[in-house]
């Protein structure tokens, strides 16, 4: 098995799970840095691969990304850079991981968690490319609990990975909270909407801001088309995406509208 190691907590936790499941000698981590990759991401990735004893390689994505942008320059003339260019970086990484899967007959583990799968905070054919999604039913809050649990057995995840604010590192100084509410708020709203099927007004009645609740519900509903193309992952909660929560992709039902 192999996976992309980013220096963030999700890929670090996925790597620790894979190494515990299969043994370090059967797991390979690939770090694929770009210009936006912080130096501590690189340091922490190398550190973690060494701590676990897994195989590790680095493949820079700069030249691949530059070639994409150069070839698209005519097509995109007059348009500013946006999430398109961010996603191209993720897709360059996804392509490299899938090439490795082909060449060595290895399985790609994707590293996205349930909070990301719920909101669609992931790139289709990018970080969603792979065969199995170990954290698919693990919310970000549970990701931290699992990381701390694993480190209580032996310190395999560098503490800095756990402590630093989460970032996709797809543009300068980006953090997850540029696009998402704080994870404790987000996960509580997701639990209410996804796992308990609560109405928008009932989620607001739990004490959450109506504008945030509206935004989260809309994100969840719009991401159904991505989730339907996502790899499977183990069911851990009483309501997982996949075999359990099955929603239409095309739907005119807008449960957040009652809040306007």
């Amino acid at each position, binding site marked *: *098995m*192999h996976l992309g190691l980013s220096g963030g907590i999700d890929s670090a936790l996925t790597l620790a*799970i*894979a190494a*515990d*499941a*299969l043994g370090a*000698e*059967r*797991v*390979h981590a690939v770090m694929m840095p770009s210009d936006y990759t912080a130096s501590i991401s690189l340091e922490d990735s*190398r550190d973690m691969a060494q701590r676990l004893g897994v*195989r*590790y*390689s*680095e493949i820079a994505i700069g030249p691949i990304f530059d070639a994409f942008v150069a070839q698209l320059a005519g097509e995109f003339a007059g348009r500013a850079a946006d999430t398109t260019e961010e996603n191209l970086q993720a897709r360059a990484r996804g392509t490299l991981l899938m090439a*490795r899967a082909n060449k*060595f*007959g*290895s*399985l790609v*583990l994707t590293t996205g968690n349930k909070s990301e799968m719920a909101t669609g905070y992931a790139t289709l054919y990018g970080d969603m490319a792979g*065969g*199995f999604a*170990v*954290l698919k039913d*693990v919310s970000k809050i*549970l990701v931290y*609990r*699992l990381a701390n*649990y*694993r480190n209580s057995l032996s310190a395999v995840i560098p503490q800095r990975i756990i402590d630093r604010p989460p970032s996709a590192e797809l543009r300068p100084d980006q953090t997850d909270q540029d696009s998402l509410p704080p994870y404790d708020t987000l996960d509580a709203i997701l639990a209410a909407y996804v796992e308990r099927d609560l109405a928008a007004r009932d989620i607001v009645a739990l004490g959450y801001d109506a504008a945030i609740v509206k935004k989260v519900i809309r994100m969840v509903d719009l991401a159904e088309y991505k989730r339907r193309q996502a790899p*499977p*992952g*183990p*069911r*851990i*909660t*009483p*309501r*997982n995406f*996949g*075999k*359990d929560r099955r929603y239409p992709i095309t739907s005119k039902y807008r449960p957040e509208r009652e809040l306007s």
Partner: protein
Amino acid sequence: MKLAVAQINLTVGDIAGNTGRLLAAAHEAHAAGAALLLTPEMSICGYPAEDLVLRRDFCEACAAALEKIADEAPRELALIVGYPERTDDGLFNAAALLRGGRVEAVYRKHHLPNHSVFDEQRVFDSGDAPCVFSCGGVNFGLNICGDIWEPGPATRALEAGADWLLVPNASPFHLNKERERHAVARSRLVEAGLPIVYANLVGGQDELVFDGASFAVSAGGEVVVQCPAWREGLFYLDIAGNSCSGPGMACRPRRRRPTTRWCWRCATMSARTASRGCTWDCRAASIRR
């Protein structure tokens, strides 16, 4: 009498491999002095086999495996195995009693779960007859997994003369599932008054992960035997009348359920299973550090 619970990892579609595992468990249980071996739901074909059970060739291979197990298991051992039973009456989620070299009786699952991750009504027909047999002086009734999550089948087993309820399961893990299973077993006890032996699968299958954690509930409603979660093994229960004990440290009831640790076990078990689905060798890779 001594009853063995096979809490083992059975793989969907690996009919030959599962047959070997079931026969090995049968010989081990017999050698340990067990009179009866209970194996998980659909133990011959794995669970959930999904639409594979709609294939005639698949069901025929399972039926052939059933005959082979009946033929090759120790003759003195009574053995409960699960399989998809295809007949002129329909397609059933079935459990067979094998004894003396033959299929002695077949129980067909009544309540087919069709909610959350389950789709059994999509492929199976519902059975309606109880199945009670005697072994070592005790009358055992069969229910399969979802049968004990609703009233009906347990009472039918009681009316057919059962003293104990044997339940083969493929019950997937989610957080706090063990508590739900114990509660369901107790509600059947309230309904029918029958003590229960609950045997569960262990291992991963696509999105589902089976945690084992088989158990027995006495006529008094106590969880008297608790097998470990996430671990394969044969676990032995001594049954006398309507009381039961499980010797050994492995079978003590749990006071606290370690949720974070179990999430970890669930994730690692699923990753291990996913790795079976592919062939590869990382050592062939050129490494740059």
